[in-house]
């Protein structure tokens, strides 16, 4: 008993503190099956007992696009850089929704799952990740709608030129996912103790949409505000997305590079903060 105690091999050590950068990513990988099952759960439970099922994912972008087109294009006469307004708004909307849904839902992940987190251990990161992935499914469906609209406008001979930037699309989506996830993780970690921030998030996200070139192209923003808007890491992503598919407007390589760096930094920060809070949040929530 005396000698072998030091040499014993333990698979797991539960300690009060761990280093800041110990993110248990290996653990997350071990639980990958759970991730897929949760995504499936979200998707299946969404359309259970509905007649139209996943078709409901279409409703929201269609209505938003119609209303945006009417208000911002017909009434306010905001430029769409020569692109058909419906397509322009649909592009912005679908992309924006992916980001904002991810952010909104991940920002309450601790609170929403307090019960299950209090009863069983699994890497907490699985939950927000599953949200991002199930939103990706939803985004995929909505993106299909966008492609249909795009095809329609191309056949009817509108001024649309998809170009090489389309290849950046996967990167743009990944960046939007990790940006939303990173922000959501930071917010949910901060709101376990002081819930005040939760109230800010809902309308903060709404306001953020106006600080992002969704309903207007970056080029049409007044010169002095343009740099401020470009500080929003989403701006570069949305602009790249729209440029790639519509070919209208401009490609801002610098803005995209900035978005990449900012997203990665926020994501990493979110991971660290989340990881620090997850260890004990059960006691405070």
């Amino acid at each position, binding site marked *: 008993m005396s000698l072998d105690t030091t040499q014993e091999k333990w698979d797991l050590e*539960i300690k*009060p503190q761990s280093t800041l950068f110990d993110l248990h990513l290996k653990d997350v990988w071990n639980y990958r099956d759970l991730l897929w*099952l949760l995504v499936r759960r979200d998707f299946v439970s969404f359309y259970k007992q509905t007649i139209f099922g996943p078709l409901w994912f279409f409703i929201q972008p269609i209505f938003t696009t119609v209303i945006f087109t009417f208000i911002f294009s017909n009434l306010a006469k905001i430029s769409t850089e020569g692109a058909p307004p419906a397509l322009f708004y649909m592009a912005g909307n679908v992309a924006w929704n992916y980001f904002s849904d991810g952010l909104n839902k991940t920002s309450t992940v601790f609170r929403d799952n307090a019960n299950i987190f209090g009863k069983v251990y699994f890497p907490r990161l699985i939950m927000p990740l599953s949200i991002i992935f199930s939103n990706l499914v939803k985004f995929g469906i909505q993106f299909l709608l966008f492609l249909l609209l795009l095809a329609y406008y191309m056949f009817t001979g509108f001024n649309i030129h998809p170009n090489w930037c389309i290849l950046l699309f996967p990167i743009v989506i990944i960046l939007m996912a990790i940006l939303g996830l990173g922000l959501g993780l930071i917010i949910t970690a901060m709101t376990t103790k002081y819930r005040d921030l939760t109230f800010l998030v809902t309308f903060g996200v709404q306001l953020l949409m106006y600080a992002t070139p969704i309903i207007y192209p970056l080029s049409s923003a007044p010169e002095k505000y343009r740099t401020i808007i470009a500080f929003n890491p989403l701006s570069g992503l949305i602009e790249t997305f729209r440029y790639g598919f519509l070919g209208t407007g401009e490609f801002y390589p610098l803005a995209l590079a900035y978005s990449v760096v900012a997203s990665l930094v926020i994501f990493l920060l979110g991971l660290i903060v989340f990881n620090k809070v997850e260890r004990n949040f059960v006691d405070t929530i």
Partner: protein
Amino acid sequence: MSNTIIRVENLSKAYQLGEFSTGTLSRDISRKWAMMRGKEDPYLKIGETNDRTSQGVSDIVWSLKDLSFDIEQGDAIGIIGRNGAGKSTLLKVLSRVTTPTTGSIKVKGRIASLLEVGTGFHPELTGKENIFLNGAILGMRKAEIKKHFDAIVEFAGVERYIDTPVKRYSSGMYVRLAFAVAAHLESEILIVDEVLAVGDAEFQKKCLGKMNDVSKKEGRTVLFVSHNMASISNLCTKSILLKHGMLQDFDETGVIIDRYIRSGKENQAQVMGDAINVNKTCSRANFEALRMVSGTRGITSNFGINEEISIEFEYEILEDNAKVYPSIHLLDSMGTCILSTFNGPSASLVFDEYFGKPLKRGIYKSVCKIPPYFLNTKNYSISAFLVPESMDDLGIAEQVLSFAVEETGEMRKEYTGEWWGLIRPMLAWKTDKL
């Protein structure tokens, strides 16, 4: 390489009472500052015990304090303690739901914990979908669940409903399915909280049987928390006794259960003199003292079902030649009188020579003995009476003593479910074929 599968070293866990933070932002900040410099939290006061019945000085309680023990592979360990003793906290820390404040736990192999039945079940999903989801939440890979799928369904007995959303399940089916998933985990260590309280007796027995298999046949380690001493004594070879978050004892289950029963203190085992709450005084005699005594352990208010209970009744005769008889009523926790008894020769198993005689002034002690295997595992109270021969002028002290009878595992070899009845005497049973 030793056989130790879990090693707990100096494990402590502190909780904040009341508000979740220290109360003010400035104190929160000063605490953060102290922690950042690597100092101890200035608002944590070490040395206070966690006794929920007395108000502590600080807002922080130590739910667990300085626990150290080793658990060997293949053992079934019971965790015993009163409410608030830290059982659930220990399980939570062991199953990594929360982290310890100090100390460490080292583990070999995987831990699966079942702190609640059906964690993560989604009402809209079918039984089949929930088996996979729940299994994954508990840490199983998809392939493992597939391998055990048929066994799980069979164990739960829900073949017919496997493609029905679980929201349409009866609560019994729901619980059966949930336990079935957990029971088929392939982890080296299984932690089970008091989940068997749900479900019917037959299913409880099935669960216990399964857990027995897990530990004895499959050689896996089981940690089991329950208030049901019957289940603990049937399942667990060794047990841990917790009190106020501290490890009181770690020994053979029988020894621990015995100690647990002794440790009760909330009941009234003895009252004396003015402390006796007398409802009506008798002019000829006075209540002096009432106490409950175990043959081996002295004054106590907790008895094992296998113990003889002595009720000692001391009274002072105030006038010479008074004929006064002691009498007691045994009541259940609802106040229903189960029996009444006195020391009359025709009502007593032994002859009391003082009965019927005029007594001289002075203090007398009468003892009434309740045999073992007579009461059920319940809380009881006792009312005491001083009855003059004339039957008027009674001295009455209602419910002055209270005590609990607890399971020790005897009479429980065949049946572990709820035992009905206010008393549980051992009676003579015999069957003949006609």
